[in-house]
Every structure is written in structure tokens, then in C-alpha cells.
């Protein structure tokens, strides 16, 4: 078993890289551009990651580290390594499974695209980077793969770069992520300079030994978390994810719903034990705010992918919030369940878009249930999971999180009660907007008759992944008890570790030990469950009242609350705000710099050259006119006198005698 855990993870990591290189260099020479190779490699990888998972379940945590490079006498050592523990072994399966299904789905979805080969090679690059991110045991290497997933995301969002919108979206995604990454990197610097290591276990050991504490530890935690804010699209950097929907829909399912955006959650889970009370407060509130804002936006969106995108942001906020309140394992659990049902939702959306010939606006849909039964039923199951309807995986994970927020509020009291309030209200909104989407798109009468008539169910390559993913969204996958996950394998395996700072108090946050927290959780479990059921039921009911039974005129209601409606429809005006402030400012200062450089800095240079030229011209003139003039003047003067005196030099002795006599006379009179 030792060899399994030593070499298999590396094989798993390199298989998608191989797929990327093979397709990138030889794709055009391969039959079908090599898509079948990419797909089968990913399914092999899925099988391998299952083997790794079971090996891990038998032998326990395994970590392997080699020297990457070092500077000088061993004091600055950079290592590379991976770790197989409960987090990474589960993530391996999630990433490979969804990647494999998306590969399969894409075969039909992307058929006939001019850049078919490029598409599959990029998917390989992404999967490689994502697996690296999951596997690594060291924060610097995590940053490395973190950036690489960013690039593959950039390439795939901008896949249809012939059109302006994907270009803008890709650029925006990368730059917004960079903002978070700078924070991430600063956090890494603090850690490296105080603890001298990048390896997670050594970092935690160093913190336990008290080498990094107090404000600096809080700062390090928050800065590392900044990376998660960017990648997991948390407020205030959430603006890139909705735009990222410009990429091909299977990509949205893989990268922008299930895996890459969850990387931030994964990072936060990895560093959970070192987050101080204040850092955890920050995490909690960011998560809650994000969940709330995006849920309110999702209610009014009309693009099927946009609704799902905002729902993704909202659910990511949930996960982050769960980790913040101290329920790391629930956050990770929700990550896993969400990955499957959200991938399912996105792929069904893809199936709809495919069937409807590139219609994404739900106002053009309607009645699709009859035309696309498989798509409809899988969509329904995944929607149930997202809304937290019993017997789904989402019910288990979401309830756990809501219970955790209640436990958290009960421990800390005061302002922290806002967290469960947000949690429950988001649950209600989620149920509402998802059923709004479902009703408008799949039920009722078709709104666009022509499109509807040409619409068809998708082929088996696309529906098969949907069915599997829908099946993976049911409770049995994770626990045999439909109302509690505690006894299920995943919760048995994944326990929230004891924080390194247990017992410390922040401004409003008290990190209590696990026993106490678990106790509080037990008390919160049933109230949270019933409350969330009631609220989700209410949300679903409202959606039916509004959109199916049409008991309330939505148009009129919209008119009545126009400002609120517009606020939500325009996404709280975040894009406009950033355009008007950060972006305008940067562009203005950039133009100003260029102007200063051209006119002032270079102006001084050219100016001094001009001054020098004028000076030299002046001194040339001076030389020519004055100095040389003097010389010439002297010469001229002499010449002038010469001219005069030449008159005297007549060569005649009589004249000389005359001048002599004349001179004597003059002298006589002068000295008389």
C-alpha cells in the first residue's frame, strides 16, 4: 500500500498534463482530434483516485516531500511535496469525477467547434493544475497551482475570444483574482519570514510553538484568506464569476461551479486551525455577506447561467461562513455535495442551451419539461439538493451548516445572531429563485414557439453525465440516514480539527473547544432542520404562487418595488462602482504617468539638451562675434593704422624730410 500512496498521486497529477501536452502538440494528427484519449484518460484517473482513496482509508495520512531548491546553508529551504489526507483524497475524487463527466459531456456539446482540440487540451491543463492545488502539502506550491488554475480559467473563459464579451470576462477574471492573490502572497511572506517554512504541518507546529502570534497571526490569516476571496468569488471580489459565464457551459460547470471556485474554500479549510478569532470573524462575515448579496441578485436574473452563477457565489459564501463559524468539516462537506449538484445544474443548463440552439434567456423558454424529460428530471433533483429538500445530499450539508451557525450564535451571542439570520434567509431565497428558474424554464407553456419546436433532448453522451451527477446528489451517497450525516462515511472521516488557538477570544468571537462546540451543535440540529425546511418550503411555495399559479401579478409587484428590483437586477451596481472608482482612477493615473513621462521627465532631458544647444550656439556666436571679433578687431585696427601709416611710407626722401621738419616743429612747440 505504501507504493500506492507514494507514486499514484503523482501519476494522477501527471495524467491530465500528459493529456494537455498530447493534444496541444499532436491533437491535429489524432483521429477526432484526440478527444477520446482525453476522456478515457480522465476516467482512468477517476479510477486511480478511487484506489488512492481506499488506500488512504486503510493506512491513513501520507505525506511525501522532496527538496525543490534551497538558498545557501540549509536555512532557506524550498520543498515540494504532496499529502494524502481526508481533504485531499476526497477532493481528488471530486475533481476527477466532475472533470471526467465534463469531458464526456463536452464531446457532443463542443462538436464542430473550430478550436475543438484546444478546448480539450485546456481542460487537461486545468485538471492538472487543480489536482496539484489539491494535492500539495505546502502553501507556496499551492500558490503556484493556484495561479495555474487561474490561467487555465482565463484561457477557457476567453475561449470564444472572437467575441468581445468573453475577452473582457477573461481579463476581468484574471485581474480581479490577482488582487486577491497579492494578499495571498503577502500572507505567504509573513509566514515564511516568521516561521521559515512553507509546509502546512511545519507552519502549524511553528504557530503552536508561539513563533507567530497576536496581530501578525491574524494578519497572516486574513491575507491568506484574501486569496480565497478572489478565487471563491467572495465579496467584494465576486464580480468576476458572473461574467465568467461567457465561457463554454461545461467549463462553467467544471471550473466556475464545482472545482476551481471551491479552491478558496479548500484553502480556508487547510489553514482553518491557524486562523485567529478575529480572522475567523472576518471569514464568517465575508462569507455571510457574500451569501446574502448574491442570493438577492439571483432572484431577478433572467439568464439561466447567471442565476446559477449567483447561486454558486451564494453557496460558496455558505461554505466560507461554515468554516468561519468553526464548522470546517461542514464547509468541506457542502463543497463536495455542492460540486456534484451544481455541476449537474450547469450541465443541465448546457443541455438546455444545446437543445434550444444557444438560447440562455429563460424568458424565451418554458414548457421544456415535455421536450427534454431527462434534462428536466435531473435538473429537478439537483434543484432539490440545492434548496435543501430532504433525501438529497444538499439537505444534509446545508442543514449542518445552518445548525453550525446557530450553535455559533448561541456561543457568542450579540451581533453574531445576524449570521444564522442571514443563513436562513439565504436558504429561503435560494429555494425561491431556483424554483422560479425551474418553473419559467421547464413548466408552463412555451414562450418562443419556434425555438420550442426545434428543441430536442440531448444525446446520450450528454444525458449520461447528468443522470450520474443527479444520482450523486442523493443522500445515500454520503449517509444512509436521510436526516443526519453524522453517521455517514464522509462525516466519520472528515472531522473538524481542534484549532491551534482554542480558548482564545477575539473582539466578538470565542474559539471554543470541539467538545463544547459539538454539544451546542446537537442542540441546534433539530431546530435548524425544521426551521430550514419551513423556510425552504415557503420559498418554493412563493415561487409557485408567483410564477406557476400566477396568483400574484409579478409585473405589478415589480413596478411597486422598482428601486429594489433594479438594485437587484443591476447586481447592486458593483460593476458600475468599480468602473467609476478603481478602474477609472487607474486608467487616469496611467495616462497621467505617461504624460508626465513624456512631457516632464523627458521634457527635462530634452530641455537640458535644448539649453545645452542654445548655450553652445550662444557660445559659438560669442566666440564668433566677440572673441573672434576682438581678434579681428585688433587685426583690423592694426590694419587701419597700417592703412593710415602706409600713406607716410611713400619712399620719397623729400617727403620724409618734410615729415621730419614738421615733427621737429611740433616737438619744439610741445616742449617749449
Amino acid at each position, binding site marked *: 500500500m505504501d507504493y500506492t500512496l507514494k507514486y499514484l498521486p503523482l501519476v494522477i497529477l501527471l495524467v491530465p498534463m500528459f493529456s494537455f501536452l498530447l493534444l496541444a502538440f499532436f491533437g491535429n494528427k489524432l483521429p477526432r482530434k484526440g478527444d477520446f484519449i482525453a476522456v478515457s484518460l480522465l476516467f482512468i484517473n477517476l479510477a486511480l483516485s478511487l484506489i488512492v482513496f481506499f488506500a488512504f482509508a486503510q493506512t491513513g495520512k501520507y505525506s511525501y516531500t522532496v527538496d525543490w531548491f534551497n538558498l545557501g546553508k540549509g536555512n532557506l529551504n524550498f520543498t515540494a511535496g504532496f499529502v494524502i489526507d481526508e481533504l485531499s483524497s476526497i477532493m481528488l475524487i471530486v475533481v476527477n469525477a466532475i472533470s471526467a463527466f465534463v469531458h464526456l459531456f463536452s464531446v457532443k456539446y463542443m462538436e464542430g467547434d473550430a478550436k475543438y482540440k484546444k478546448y480539450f487540451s485546456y481542460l487537461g491543463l486545468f485538471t492538472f493544475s487543480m489536482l496539484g492545488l489539491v494535492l500539495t502539502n505546502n502553501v507556496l506550491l499551492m500558490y503556484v497551482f493556484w*495561479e495555474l488554475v487561474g*490561467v487555465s480559467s482565463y484561457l477557457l473563459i476567453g475561449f470564444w475570444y*472572437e467575441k468581445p464579451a468573453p475577452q473582457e470576462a477573461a481579463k476581468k477574471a484574471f485581474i480581479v483574482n490577482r488582487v486577491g492573490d497579492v494578499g495571498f502572497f503577502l500572507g505567504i511572506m509573513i509566514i515564511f519570514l516568521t516561521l521559515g517554512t512553507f509546509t502546512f504541518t511545519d507552519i502549524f507546529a511553528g504557530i503552536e510553538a508561539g513563533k507567530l502570534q497576536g496581530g501578525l497571526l491574524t494578519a497572516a490569516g486574513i491575507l491568506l484568506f484574501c486569496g480565497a476571496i478572489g478565487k471563491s468569488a467572495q465579496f467584494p471580489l465576486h464580480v468576476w464569476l458572473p461574467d465568467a459565464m461567457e465561457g463554454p457551459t461545461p467549463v462553467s460547470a467544471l471550473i466556475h461551479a464545482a472545482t476551481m471556485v471551491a479552491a478558496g474554500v479548500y484553502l480556508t479549510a487547510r489553514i482553518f486551525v491557524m486562523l485567529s478569532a478575529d480572522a475567523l470573524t472576518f471569514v464568517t462575515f465575508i462569507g455571510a455577506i457574500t451569501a446574502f448579496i448574491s442570493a438577492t441578485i439571483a432572484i431577478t436574473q433572467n439568464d439561466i447561467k447567471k442565476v446559477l452563477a449567483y447561486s454558486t457565489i451564494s453557496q460558496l459564501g455558505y461554505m466560507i461562513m461554515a468554516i468561519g463559524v468553526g464548522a470546517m468539516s461542514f464547509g468541506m462537506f457542502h463543497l463536495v455535495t455542492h460540486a456534484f449538484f451544481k455541476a449537474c445544474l450547469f450541465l443541465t443548463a448546457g443541455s438546455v442551451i444545446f437543445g434550444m440552439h444557444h438560447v440562455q434567456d429563460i424568458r424565451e423558454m418554458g414548457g421544456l419539461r415535455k421536450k427534454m424529460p431527462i434534462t428536466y428530471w435531473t435538473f429537478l433533483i439537483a434543484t432539490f439538493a440545492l434548496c435543501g429538500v430532504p433525501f438529497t445530499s444538499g439537505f444534509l450539508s446545508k442543514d449542518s451548516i445552518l445548525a453550525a451557525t446557530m450553535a455559533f450564535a448561541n456561543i457568542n451571542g450579540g451581533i453574531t445572531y445576524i449570521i444564522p439570520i442571514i443563513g436562513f434567509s439565504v436558504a429561503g431565497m435560494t429555494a425561491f429563485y431556483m424554483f422560479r428558474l425551474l418553473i419559467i424554464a421547464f413548466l408552463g407553456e412555451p414562450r418562443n414557439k419556434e425555438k420550442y419546436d426545434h428543441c430536442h433532448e440531448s444525446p446520450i453522451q450528454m444525458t449520461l453525465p447528468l443522470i450520474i451527477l443527479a444520482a450523486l446528489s442523493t443522500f445515500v451517497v454520503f449517509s444512509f440516514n436521510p436526516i443526519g450525516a453524522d453517521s455517514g462515511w464522509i462525516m466519520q472521516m472528515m472531522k473538524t480539527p481542534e484549532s491551534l488557538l482554542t480558548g482564545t477570544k477575539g473582539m466578538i468571537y470565542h474559539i471554543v473547544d470541539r467538545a463544547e462546540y459539538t454539544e451546542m451543535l446537537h442542540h441546534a440540529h433539530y431546530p435548524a432542520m425544521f426551521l430550514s425546511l419551513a423556510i425552504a418550503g415557503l420559498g418554493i411555495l412563493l415561487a409557485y404562487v408567483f410564477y406557476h399559479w400566477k396568483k400574484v401579478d409579478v409585473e405589478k409587484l415589480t413596478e411597486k418595488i422598482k428601486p429594489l428590483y433594479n438594485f437587484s437586477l443591476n447586481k447592486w451596481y458593483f460593476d458600475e462602482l468599480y468602473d467609476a472608482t478603481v478602474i477609472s482612477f487607474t486608467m487616469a493615473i496611467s495616462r497621467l504617468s505617461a504624460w508626465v513621462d513624456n512631457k516632464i521627465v523627458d521634457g527635462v532631458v530634452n530641455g537640458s539638451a535644448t539649453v545645452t544647444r542654445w548655450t553652445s550656439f550662444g557660445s559659438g556666436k560669442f566666440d564668433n562675434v566677440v572673441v573672434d571679433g576682438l581678434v579681428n578687431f585688433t587685426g583690423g585696427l592694426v590694419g587701419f593704422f597700417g592703412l593710415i601709416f602706409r600713406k607716410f611710407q611713400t619712399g620719397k626722401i623729400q617727403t620724409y624730410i618734410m615729415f621730419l621738419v614738421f615733427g621737429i616743429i611740433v616737438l619744439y612747440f610741445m616742449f617749449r
Partner: protein
Amino acid sequence: MVQFPILGIGILSWIVFLPVIGMLILIFIPKAYEKTIKYVAMIFPILQIILSVVLLMNYNKDLAGINKLESFQFVEKLSWINIPALIWDGTINIDYLMGIDGISLPMIILTSIIGFVGVLASFSIKRNEKGYYILYLFLVTGMMGTFCALDLFLFFVFWEIMLLPMYFLIGIWGGERREYAAIKFFLYTFFGGIFMLITIIGLYFSSKDPVTGLHTFNMLTLMNPAAIDPNSLLGGVGTNLRYLAFVALFIGFAIKVPIFPFHTWLPDAHVEAPTAISVILAGVLLKMGSYGIMRISYPIFPDAAVWFMYPMAILAMINIIYGALCAMAQKDFKKLIAYSSISHMGYVMLGIASGTAIGFNGAVFQMFNHGTITAVLFLSVGIIYDRAHTRGLYDFGGLANKMPKYFAVIIIAFFASIGLPGLSAFISESFVFLGGFKNETIRVLTIISTLGIILNAAYILWTIQRIFFGTLPEKWNEITDINGRELLSTVPLLLIIIILGIFPSPFINLMTSSVNQLVNIIWHLN
């Protein structure tokens, strides 16, 4: 004394003066044989690459160099100028002293690689090729010599000698405003050279070789505090005159790097220079400035180096951010890359200003990486300019589909330039930031400088968008993808960028002991 002689001549002399042999051969080839001229010119950079590989294989990475001649390698020491002085007692004694350590070796490797790439890129030159290649080879000699010289006088000779071919290469084979750019480049650098010369002369008269009792130009002797006469001009520690001398020397180097506000010659020179010369300029020439600071200013004036770290870090920060902002506002592709060079050389300066081992490592590594990456970028600009005869960022669009190979090449270079992990510049930039962060005095400046990471990404991605995305304007329907020669000049550089990004240790190991020695000198640890 000559270590490692080949045919009785030291290997460093070979590597420096090989191009001069090439020049002599070219002189006798008639002008009309253009192909022969090209290929003869190409042989010598290849020979230089072979020699630098020999250097690399015989290099002992445990020897530190910096201030001890015995730990320099491939040393050549010959008496060069030896005349009795008329005005003061003693003799003027100048050695021909060369040797390399962990700071110069990466630069020599870089110079030989870029020298070769430059010849390949020169194949698009169609006018008076004989003169061009003669001057080109002369330029390579000057650059190589600067990185090998260990005697201030010799260093200065190489430093100044290289201006001459550069002036003509820009002034004759350049673009529309070539004469303006060439004169600006020449005068600006020459102006800096004067400051250097004053300092060098000041150092000479302040020195007193402990062994011979004579004045000396030997850098390594000058690094020994005992060799500076305490009663002389530059005697003592931390005196105003020493600070002034440091500043004067710094200005000389700063103009070359270039550091704000001495940078404005660079965009002009780059825009007007032919592609190959831009490649040389950005790839090697700029590094001579930062190399000079590490080789000469720091070890000779460690007191001033520490004192000036903060101001230098401010300038580095300005370079990084201001350079990036200026780059963002450019409409000319080549000018944009030129300003991005300014920004990236800011990282080098930040590493140097940090005064830490990791920062110095980052600085030297960044010099190398910037050399390779920017070379690819300038080559790419040349590739598109050769085809379209324009460099306007707004004149293009949709080239990604039209020139897929070209797109693949340039996107790797672009991502390397914004510090993507897995590519070489990530490691050097990280080192620089770690170093700057480690030094508490400049920590805040370092944090502000990280903004450059975002700005870099912004203008590079914007450039990609404008040139490669969108739809192809009809006028470029006939444009062809990158050809074999162009691939030959870019792909090896890309391979270096990728390999060093994944396995940097062999390269970093080369310089570690020298860098540590430099840190020891600055902070007086030995």
C-alpha cells in the same frame, strides 16, 4: 597568471575577444557576399555559447568570489599598462584582470545566448550588412568584457567602448527617428560615464595597495578597507564624500538600468532600434547597470550601500509602479514592452536594495529571467512588425487564430512576464519580494510594490486582448505565421524560461555562495 588557458590564452579572453576575430574576418569579406557575412557572424556567438558551457561545466559553485581573488575562477592577471608617473611618486600600474564568480557567470551565459539570438533576429536587416555585423560583434565584445573585468579601468574601457557600436547600430539601421534616439542614448550614457569616471579616479587616488603601496584600479583591492588611505579623499567610513562618490557611481549605473528619473532614453532607443538591437539592449545592456551596482558600488562602499537602501528602494518602487502605469497608457507595442522593462528592472533594484541574500539571489535571477523573457517579447514585436510594418496596438486583432504558433510563443512569454508560477520570473520576483519584505526598513515599500503585480497583469492581458483576440482586420488576411528561423530564435528561450521555472536549483546554486559573500561584506559579517 592565467587559469584555464586554451592555446595559451585564457578562456575569458577567448570568450570576450572571439567576436573581434570575427570582425577581422568580416572586414576581408567583400560586401556583396551577404550570406557568407551572416553565417560567419553567426559562428562567433555560437562559439561563445560553447565556451560558456565549458565555463559552466568547470565552474566550482562553492567558491564565492566578490572580494577575494583566490575564490574567483578562470582568473587572468597580466600587467597591462605600466608607466612611471610624472606628477606623483610611483608608477601607474593597470592590470588586465579578469575573473568570474556567481554574479558574473549568469550574465555571461545570458550574454552569449542573447548574442546568438540577436544574430538570428538580425537576418531581417537588408542594408549594408557587412558594417552591421562588424559593429554587432564589436558590441558583443564590449558586453562580455564588462561582465568579466575585475579592474576598474578595464571595466570602464569595456563599458564605454560598447557605446560606439550601439550608437551606430541605432543611428544607421534604426527607425524613423533613429538619429535622435541614437544621440540621446549615447549622450545620456556618456553623461553617466563621466560620473563614473570621476568616482573611479577618486578611488584610484584614495587607494593604497597594502602590498605594493601604490594606487590601484583593482576592484578587489579597493573592496578591502585597509587598501583605502584613511587620510585620503574617500577614506574613513560613512563620510559625506564617500556618500557622494556612491551617488555619482550610482547615477552612472542608474542611467543604464534605467532607474527613474533617468529612464527616458530607453523607450526612444527601443522604439527606434532594429529588433536585434532592442533584444540586446533589453536582454543584456540594462543588466550592466544593476550588475555594476552589485559588483562595484556595494562591495566598495558597503557603508553607503546600507545608508542608501531606503532611497534606492523608493526608486525601485517608482520604477515598478510608474513603469507599469506608463506601459498601460502606450499605444505602440514596442514602447509598451520598453516600459514594462523599466517596471521589471524595478524588481531587480528592489532585490538589490533589500540587502538580503534572498533579495540578491532574486535580483541576479531576475536579471537573467528578464533578459530571456524580454528578448522573446522584443523578438515577437519584431516578428509582427516585419509582416505588418506597424506596431500600433489598435491596428491588430484576431491574430490568435491567424497566427496560432506565434500566439503560443508570445503567450508563454507574456505569462512569464507577469510572473506566472511554473515560469522562471515567478521565482525571481518572489525572491525579490521576500527579500524586500525581510528587510524591515523597506518592508512598507515592498508591500506597495506588490501592486505592480496587478498592474503588470492588467496591461499584458489588455495587450493580448487588443492584438490577438477579436476579429482579424481584413488588411491582415495575407499575414503569415511565424517561420522556422523565428521559431529557432524564440523556442530555446522559452524552454529556458520553462525549465528554470520548474527546476531553478541548478541555476540558483551557481550564485548562492557569491551572493552570501556579498551580504557578508555589506553587513560586515566576516
